[in-house]
């Protein structure tokens, strides 16, 4: 059993152990949907919601799997549950915010293959978190993901005004920005007990 306190887990997953910048989970939306602040914010919130749902269902599913000694099915069951949760969010966004639905485009269904979502489910099982700890882990992960996405979007909006050399344009400059962000997040190391 893991003894990390709730505050400890929350702070660690938001700052020094940020899902995107320290553990490299969810890189595709991080590089793909971070052009504008107006799409980065809802994308972050939608992903945070899916992470929460996936983490809660993964916790109970895992109890069930352990009970019947079916641990080898964990990957298959987790990914199926996540796909259902994403479908739910997609239907909700399409009904209530059709404009937003068009802007997010392909990236909304792609939350299914967002490593951050599956990562939460797998890591919380691997670290044997109890229910409250899993909850804190998923909430912290969601906030951390949204934070990274928003920071990145803000930086990239600024980049449009600056003169970038042709060779570095496109993916390369975004990756460099990600590296700088990640470097600055390393400065938070030690907050929340550290790892």
């Amino acid at each position, binding site marked *: 059993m893991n003894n990390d306190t709730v505050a400890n887990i929350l702070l660690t997953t938001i700052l020094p152990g940020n899902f995107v910048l320290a553990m490299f989970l969810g890189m595709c939306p991080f590089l793909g949907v971070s052009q504008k602040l107006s799409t980065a914010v809802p994308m972050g919130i939608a992903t945070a919601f899916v992470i929460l749902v996936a983490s809660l269902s993964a916790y109970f599913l895992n109890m069930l799997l352990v009970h019947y000694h079916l641990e080898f099915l964990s*990957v298959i069951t987790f990914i*199926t549950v996540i*796909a259902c949760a994403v479908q739910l969010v997609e239907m909700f966004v399409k009904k209530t915010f059709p404009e937003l639905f068009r802007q997010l485009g392909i990236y909304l269904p792609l939350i*299914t293959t967002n490593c951050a979502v599956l990562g939460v489910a797998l890591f919380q099982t691997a670290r044997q978190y109890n229910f409250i700890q899993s909850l804190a882990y998923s909430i912290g992960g969601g906030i951390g993901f949204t934070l990274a996405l928003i920071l990145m979007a803000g930086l990239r909006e600024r980049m449009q005004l600056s003169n970038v050399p042709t060779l*570095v344009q496109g993916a390369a400059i975004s990756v460099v920005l990600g590296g700088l962000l990640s470097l600055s997040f390393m400065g938070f190391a030690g907050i929340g007990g550290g790892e």
Partner: protein
Amino acid sequence: MSAPSSFDEFLDGIWKQNPIFVMVLGMCPTLAVTVSAINSISMGLATTFVLAASCLLVSLLRSAIPKQVRIASYIVIIATFVTVVDYAIQAISLDLYEALGAYIKLIVANCILLGRAEAHAAKNPPLPATLNAFGMGLGFTLGLLAIGSVREILGAGKLFGLSLFGPHFQPWVVMVLPPGGFFVLAGWLIVFAAFRHISIKRNAQLGGVQS
């Protein structure tokens, strides 16, 4: 126009459509496990196996899977092979299993796999589909190896665990930490962009001379 031969499709994934440097897909394992060359190779080979096996199966079942549930079916197929690889690595080398951690299971969420299944394997007969997937997997492995060896050389002064520079080498530790992954990847992306730039220029010059 003749159909591309199977061998061309195989080469496509290694160079022209390299998943990491040209299509910029599958970034999570690319950055997370490339702290050393040996980790990179094992991750690449594991992904290659899952990619080739699931593309073969998807291609065989392509007429049996209804269109509405195809994504879900692909994911279940991929997840099955990932579970196989996960247990195989655990049985072969426990050290490696601990080094790669949950990232083996996260192969399921690798965009390359679903992308290949949807864009190629679902529309082609088994042989070209598998060859293409195999090429893609090898291209991915080469990309990982390129990033992994640079990070290991700079960050630890070693390659495949062998010391390169002797005991007085001061390692550039940040390269094996998360930011280093971003910087090395950016460096390779710039190198590839430069290559493309040069070849475009040369083609333009040749075209100018001929006409």
